[in-house]
């Protein structure tokens, strides 16, 4: 989780990724931030996040992002 939090903070350093679970619902992450996160996650975890995965359930919190990454790694 710490590694993921570092990646996220590197993209947007003014967001409390540790506690926020409404990153999409509250408009904290815009489409540019979402795509930067995808590029960073693809690179770091050797996955390819498809566009169909860009849904609030996957991007609302760091925990849901980690869950998605682990699921895609296992596929």
């Amino acid at each position: 989780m710490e590694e993921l939090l570092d990646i996220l903070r590197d993209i947007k350093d003014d967001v409390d990724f540790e506690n926020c679970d409404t990153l999409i619902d509250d408009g904290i992450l815009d489409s540019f931030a979402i795509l930067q996160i995808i590029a960073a996650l693809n690179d770091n975890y050797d996955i390819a996040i498809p566009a169909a995965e860009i849904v609030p359930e996957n991007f609302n919190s760091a925990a849901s992002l980690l869950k998605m990454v682990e699921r895609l790694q296992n596929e």
Partner: protein
Amino acid sequence: MGYTSPSFLLFLTGSILLYFLFPKKYRWTVLLGASLFFYARASLKGFIYLAVTSLSTYFAGRILSARNQKDKETVKAIKDREEKKKQKEILKKKRWHILLACLILNFGILIFLKYLNFMIDTVNALSGFERYPMLNLLIPLGISFYTFQSMGYVIDIYNGKLEAEKNFFKFLLFVSFFPQIIQGPISMYDQLAHQLYEPHDYDYHNLKRGCELMLWGYFKKMVIADRAVMFLNVVTADYTAYNGTVILLALLVYTVQLYADFSAGIDISRGICEIIGIDMVENFRRPYFAETINDFWRRWHISLGAWMKKYIFYPFAVLKPVMNIGKKIKNSSFGKTEYGKHVAKVFPISLSSLVVFMVVGFWHGANWKYAGFGLWNGLIIMFSELLKPVFEQMTQALHIKTASFGFKLFRIIRTLFIVIVGYVFDIAPGLSSSVDMIRRVFFDQVWTAETVKTIADISPINKDGAVILCIAVIILFVVSLVQESTGKQIRDMIDEKPWPLEWAVLFAGMVIVLCFGIYGPGYDAAAFVYMQF
């Protein structure tokens, strides 16, 4: 049968009455019947295209939905991990072919009907003579709206996000629902469909609020937009006859007219839905208060933006070759610098945004001037993202308080300026005339009494009409300002008042629209601007 015609109001009243009188189980059939009647009245020939899209999408959706389930079970039964992966890819490819066939057919129809003459014209222009004759093609009512909505549905099924609707007639209702067929909004299936199918009970509160929203729409359309368009039509008929000051005034009038017209149509559509008990997606959030051009596009035609983002922007931006552009920049010597790192992150995304704006541009019309519109918006967003660190350094160096009201106002005016320049591509007859219009606005300003006289002479709106227009625009501005600063709807504020006052406001609104609206025998109400899409 436009929104402003008495026959529409009669049709609407009858449909709503019938809806609430019907047994609950069959209420959706009233909406379907009303939608098909409305469409047939507007365009009987266009009905064939609507039927082709509905049928092809319905069957593609059913096949994909069934395959999703079956393929999942097939893959689940395979034990070997590598084999599982391989089989999954093979099955996905087969599903992709089904989706592709549906997309090609439906976008093919859209492109053929909307853009074939444009392509012929371009080929003729390039070859220097009339090589191919133009075709007389019928563009069905709302073709872009129902095509986009249907294709969104089938893509969502392909992605496993939706189950296909089993009842064809229910699906047909989703495609043809009359309040959205004229000019959107483009609804997502999971947001709208279940609301269409489930029965809604009559509710006085919904009726009142729906009527209020419709009335606000009629005010914007009949008092503002249809009055403003009269002046605009004169100037755009031959803009070369006027100096930059007159053209600038026409541009400002268009800025008001376009918003009033388009948002009015949406308000009327949403008001109709609200009376029934359906919550239709929002399409505008006071766009002229946007502080950046990105923000503007999040507030303007929200449903089109959401569709483009979901089905074009994201899928394009996550493509491997696009993502690799960022990697290449990152691995270069430039990418090792602080600014280079920023460019590596943002450039591929900005490029995707530019592509989307080109698509949005051409969606607006089959004319090269819309390429200019797309480029203008796309490049502004691209450079604003790429140069973000530079702007941040500048504001720091100049000790600008970014949270101050003054800076906020500066950002709003700057964004509005960019938007208005973009509107030149809308009102100009072509690409080269767009550039000429911009040149005139910037370099041919003539602020003299002569110009004032020219404006007064050419204006089909008399002095009283101009005063009514100005007051109506001020009302629109004040209402928007209250909504923007308080986050509250005016209707919520009216709701809090005693009922006689509520009805007095509603009655006053009706009187204003009836007295100051542009309508009546001999006046052909202007079609909604976005109806042509």
